[in-house]
């Protein structure tokens, strides 16, 4: 289903059938991920070589091998920190999605209120929200709540804007047809605008999930007792640079897992949009 589609005939057959045989699909996946994998291995090898040849001190730039060593040795601490951060990311992300979709629906459905709300949303988007983190710590303490609030204020905007575009880019002739048979605004919203907006919503959610990871880390920098961001900050004050990198690796892997989870949901349930590779 998700293979790179070059010619329209192939795309039609991809929609028609359940997909190519499993063996073919595995080979497709191999050929898709091979270049990225080779590049990744290349970078790691060069990095390892540079840090050995120039004998860089570990607290400046640890070699990949020592990062891996820390990843294994501190796996319990890192795992717990990742669990804390993952909770913040997931709850913040879900609330961002709900808040963003709600704002988009309100603006699309209630024109007058939307005209009042939209400029305020844009104005708020231009506040450097990272700077709000200390305030949220002050208001909501050191646990989950301030991180979730920070994530929501950072990540709801792309969800709202993308979904709004999806709600509004509906064929005007189709709307005219629906009106002509007496459809109410709610019927048009439910039957046409909302389904039409789902691919746009998913695009917004993909941006939101990466922002949610950033929000969680920044929130932990501002004040936390656990989590990967907390660990990064703590380890860097202790000059444990390998641990900083190990935590960074876990953050990246976490972010990637979330991102691909959303992409999987998109491919699974919103299958009328042709997917790019």
């Amino acid at each position: 289903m998700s293979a790179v589609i070059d010619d329209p005939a192939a795309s039609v057959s991809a929609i028609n059938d359940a997909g190519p045989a499993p063996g073919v699909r595995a080979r497709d996946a191999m050929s898709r991920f091979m270049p990225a994998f080779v590049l990744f291995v290349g970078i790691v090898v060069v990095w390892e070589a540079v840090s050995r040849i120039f004998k860089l001190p570990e607290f400046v730039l640890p070699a990949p091998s020592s990062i891996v060593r820390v990843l294994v040795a501190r796996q319990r601490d890192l795992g717990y920190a990742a669990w804390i951060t993952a909770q913040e990311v997931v709850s913040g992300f879900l609330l961002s999605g709900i808040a963003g979709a709600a704002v988009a629906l309100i603006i699309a459905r209630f024109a007058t209120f939307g005209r009042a709300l939209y400029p305020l949303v844009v104005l708020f988007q231009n506040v450097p929200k990272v700077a709000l983190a200390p305030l949220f710590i002050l208001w909501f303490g050191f646990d989950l709540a301030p991180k979730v609030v920070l994530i929501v204020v950072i990540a709801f905007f792309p969800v709202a804007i993308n979904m709004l575009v999806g709600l509004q880019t509906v064929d005007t002739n189709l709307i005219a047809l629906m009106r002509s048979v007496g459809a109410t605004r709610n019927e048009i919203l439910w039957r046409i605008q909302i389904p039409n907006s789902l691919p746009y919503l998913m695009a917004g959610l993909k941006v939101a999930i990466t922002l949610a990871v950033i929000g969680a880390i920044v929130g932990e920098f501002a004040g936390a007792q656990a989590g990967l961001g907390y660990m990064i900050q703590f380890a860097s004050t202790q000059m444990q640079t390998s641990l900083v990198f190990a935590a960074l690796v876990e953050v990246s892997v976490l972010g990637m897992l979330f991102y691909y989870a959303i992409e999987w949901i998109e491919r699974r349930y919103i299958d009328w949009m042709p997917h790019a590779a």
Partner: protein
Amino acid sequence: MNASPHILAHGVCVDFTVAGRITRVLNDVSLSVPKGGFVSLIGPSGCGKSTLLKVLAGLLPPTSGNVSVAGVAPIEAVRQRRIGIVFQEATLLPWKNALDNVALLMEVAHAGLSNDEIRGRASDMLRLVGLERAAEKRPAQLSGGMRQRVSIARALALDPEVLMMDEPFGALDAITREEMSDFLLGIWERTKKTIVLVTHSIDEAAFLSREVHVMASNPARIIEALPIGLPYPRNEESYAAPEFARATARLRRLLKEGHRKAA
């Protein structure tokens, strides 16, 4: 057959205000279409033929003049589901299959009908347009001509008396267009709908219509209503008939004259 015209427009003018300036896009247009008639509006781009169709279909109120469809104002005729509309783009929902797309307007219009009744009628309509085997397919899996047939089935599903079509085959290739012309004639003969077709194809207008209204721009108006004497049923041989050649030559000359006067 009804003696009084099914569609009647008298002295219709439409003004648009663009950037504070009033532009007359339709000037004193009158026409009448008998019940079961097939009329084409032909003219150069921007001559107001789509605007005229929108007025007849109740999508745009005229600035002045009178319009009636089946004896009532177009907006009322739309409300009574007497008018079916087909646009140049099929305007189908990409997430619904052909059957559900045909059912869409019925679900809104006939909220009282059961799901089975609506589905049954939708598949009848798909059979009418020859797409019963494509019921489960989504628009992306259909060709341009098939998509437009789904769109026609969707319009017919509400059983309107009049079918208003705005360049319905304009986005299709030449061969598909001719196929769709044959198809549309077949539908017209079977359903006895009154059809108003906007087109910029001389051959299409002459082949399909009983009467062609030729429009010119600046100011946008109808310059001639040309009856096409070709007998129905029309088929491939009609293109070779002398009457077809006469009609297309006349249409070509009228369009050129209208164009020259405008320039």
